[in-house]
């Protein structure tokens, strides 16, 4: 198990967003996380990725207790994420949004910037090349030098996904990346996620409302409702379970 969430809870005021929830993600899997809006999925992601600290419980990553770690520390041990509401760097170009990601850039240290320009330069060329590849793959070439703040919602989402492709991660958390992305690109994306999973051994943990996409990519699928995990299994099983259909598919699914 690469991620192990143990009895985690988070309250916002009187609201129990996540309530004594335990679940785990197998190494090398593409695990889906579904559930009605407000089920606490994003909150759970925030706790796994260190953006908020759980009130109770533990998060184990790669055998290590990472509860209370800062996001940047988790990044360094190989956990990357996207945000449901795009968190682009609005005053930077799309290309810069990608180029800022790699963590071991000598140019991020003042001393190296000033006194080892050649080292900085050669690394910068590599980073740029990598970023251009990602841009091409995401078909964002035409907005490469546009400020990220001016991109469309879907393009921002792609940019978020692109950031996770800039480094070799162990685990990638995707929070509704597909929302607002067009179908053809979505197919490409799904193909790429599968390929990265198969060939490079990435683990994906995916929140999605598009059931077809979940069905195609994910095994297993975890269902959350009202802050708790209510089921886990292959998509076919989930669809066949009347209690879940009642809890989830019974209510109209808003895509937000």
């Amino acid at each position, binding site marked *: 198990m690469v991620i192990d969430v143990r009895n985690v809870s988070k309250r916002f005021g009187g609201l129990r967003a996540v309530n004594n929830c335990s679940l785990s993600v197998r190494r090398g899997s593409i695990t889906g996380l579904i559930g009605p809006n407000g089920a606490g999925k994003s909150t759970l992601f925030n706790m796994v990725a*260190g953006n908020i600290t759980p009130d109770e419980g533990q998060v184990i990553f790669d055998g290590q207790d990472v509860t209370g770690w800062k996001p940047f520390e988790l990044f360094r041990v190989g956990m990357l994420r996207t*945000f449901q509401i795009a968190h*682009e*760097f609005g005053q*930077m170009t799309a290309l810069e949004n990608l*180029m*800022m990601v790699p963590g071991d850039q000598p*140019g991020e240290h003042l001393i190296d910037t000033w006194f080892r320009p050649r080292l900085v330069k050669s690394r910068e060329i590599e980073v740029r090349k990598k970023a251009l590849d990602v841009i091409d793959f995401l078909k964002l070439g035409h907005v490469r*030098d546009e400020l990220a703040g001016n991109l469309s919602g879907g393009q921002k989402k792609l940019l978020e996904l692109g950031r996770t492709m800039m480094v070799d991660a162990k685990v990638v958390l995707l929070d509704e990346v597909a929302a607002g992305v067009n179908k053809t690109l979505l197919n490409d994306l799904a193909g790429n996620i599968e390929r990265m999973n198969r060939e490079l051994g990435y683990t994906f943990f995916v929140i999605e409302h598009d059931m077809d996409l979940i069905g195609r990519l994910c095994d297993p699928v975890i269902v959350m409702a009202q802050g708790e995990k209510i089921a886990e299994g292959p998509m076919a099983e989930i669809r066949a379970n009347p209690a879940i259909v009642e809890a989830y598919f019974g209510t109209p699914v808003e895509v937000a």
Partner: protein
Amino acid sequence: MLGRALLAFAAGAAIVYGARKADRIGITGRWKTVLTVFAWFVAYVLYRSQLDPAAAYIESAVGGGWVGGLGGHPVLGWLFGGLLAAGIAYIVGKISLGLRTDYLAIATIGISEIIRALIKNMDWLTRGTLTVSPIPWPTPLPQSFQAGGMDNLSALVAARGGFLVLALVVLGIVLWLISRAYAGPWGRMMRSIRDNHIASSSMGKNVKARQLEIFIFGSVLMGIGGAMLVSFVQIFDPSSYQPINHTFLIWVMVIVGGAGNNWGALFGAVLIWLIWVISEPLSKAVFEFVSMWSSNVGWGAIPEIEARSAQMRVFVLGLVITIALRFAPKGLIPEVVKRG
């Protein structure tokens, strides 16, 4: 004796640290708070009890003793000024950078007043109101040009020119260092933190440490600037450093010039400095004109024109801030957002 004060300081720090870790031995909650406050008190008393006699001893030396006056080269002093500022900025940043912007502004103004009170009153360290002078110049003084046979005016010009060249060299080096860092990955990372610190943290940037870094970097530059100013005017008089004509003046320079743009800051600095120095003679001229007119009409002359015109500077400074915020909120040379 200073050594003993230092020991007392260390002991005090240990006591406070111990109290904060008291939960290890089962003291928690309110009792821990009480214990921590008490530990601070004990540490403070301990420190004061050792420092006071040491301070009195140093100050009692003939002519007002102090610990400074080591006789190093002024440029070394400038560097030390930067270093000292870095140390202070580290402490200030550590304790206050987590606050919201307006609380942060108030907290830093409060802290700066505390530091100013300390500098003003710790006579043993800084000579306080006794002032330190003359402070040597790194370049030859006018007197030495005069000794070489120059007349007064050209000696002054030559000496000040020398200082100016040195100052410009320092400015050039600093600008080069900043531009280089800002144009590279370092600047990109800093801008990402400014744009969205949550995403930046999730992309592996240690936001807090980086904010502290840039705060310290800015403070080092300010420390060097202060040290240069002190050696230029040749006198260190802590009570002459008022927020109005230093802190706020520099703020105005940045706001008017354009925050986030080095050329803007530079331009603002020169422009505001010009306004600052010409507003006095200019208002003096205006006053004299009005005074002449009013005495002709029979209302009598304006009294104390000299003193009044000196105060015009403060008014003009305030006016420039408010006008700039209202009509050019991004500054005269706004930050350029880089493309491609």
